[in-house]
């Protein structure tokens, strides 16, 4: 069975997987043959909601102490969660 990956990034407003989603990105290795994201914006209110829709957590961001002198500087969105779904390339259905 040939598989393709769908990748979902969620950025949250806290370090927990049930923190609220504040950003998202979707990359579709099935080129549209697989299941699309829900239409809602954001597609999932939390990372836990994504788990309940069949997404598998690949990675969450490390928690790191700020460098001395940089304690009050912001940069990128801090709490990043990366999910995948593996899809059967022939049927477009999630791999069971």
């Amino acid at each position, binding site marked *: 069975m040939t598989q393709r990956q769908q990748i979902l*990034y969620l*950025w*949250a*407003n*806290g370090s927990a997987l049930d923190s609220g*989603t*504040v*950003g*998202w*990105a*979707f990359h579709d290795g099935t080129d549209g043959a697989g299941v699309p994201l829900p239409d809602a*914006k*954001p597609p999932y209110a939390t990372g836990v909601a994504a788990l309940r829709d069949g997404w598998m957590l690949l990675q969450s961001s490390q928690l790191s102490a700020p460098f001395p002198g940089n304690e*009050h*500087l*912001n*940069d*990128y*969105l*801090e*709490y990043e969660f990366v999910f995948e779904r593996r899809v059967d390339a022939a049927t477009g259905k999630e791999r069971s």
Partner: protein
Amino acid sequence: MAEFVANGFIRFEAIVPSDVNKRGIEEMRRLELERFAPEGLKPPHTGTPLDECYPAPSVIGEYLRLPQIRGIIESFVGPNPTFDHDFTHHIQPHATYTQPLHVDAVTDSPDTTFDVQLFWYPHDVAPGEGGTRFVPGSHLRRVRSSGLDRYQHIAGEKQFAGPAGTVVVFHHGLWHAGQPNPGDADRWMHKVRLNPAVPQVRLWNTDDFAELQNPPSDHVFARMLPDSVAQILRTMHPWMSITDYRNEQIQRAKLWRYLTGDDAYDVDHYLTRLEGRAALVGS
């Protein structure tokens, strides 16, 4: 000005007259065609004082010399700032390219000085038809431009839509991107970046300054003035974590200190608390 500090942009609705907008599109078209051609209309050299840019006859010069536009420019970067560069952003009808979110130029120095970029939209822009995407409140974060490519969607982001002649002033650090244009009309926009040539201290109309400037004791968990600069600097954007938000308040307070020359200014005691303790151990 406090809204600019909190949000990173400020918008002036239909501030450019209709005839300047109409003629402006034609000059933008010429500048697009001739900018890199051997002959024809050229932009000013980088580093030129604004007063010497686009001498008459020039519609872009006419726009930049409108009293209301010069008033805006002077309020942020002084009476005769330095021309950095400009560009005509032209998105053709049905263009599908989505530019990634980015900041212009490079990661900036840590001081509070800033450039402004004026985005002039000379025709109506309908919602979703190619208006610039931007993220309110992102301007004081320290990022590398290409690191923002990853963010396809951020809660609270905006896409410009508005009537002809609208000018939006961006802090140079605001995250932004060009968007697809599913409409049937060309989308034109002129962007100019200006560097301050004088300290950016109280350059705007400050008639209401004494009334709105809060004391450094103004604290959300103690006592607050009901209508003050601090209330505006407490703006929390939907994409921020609570830590982001409090750090942003510190950065905004530092920027407000620079803009006002009030070195004791604070919002919610964050800077005053740290400075008071640091003074105990000396330097």
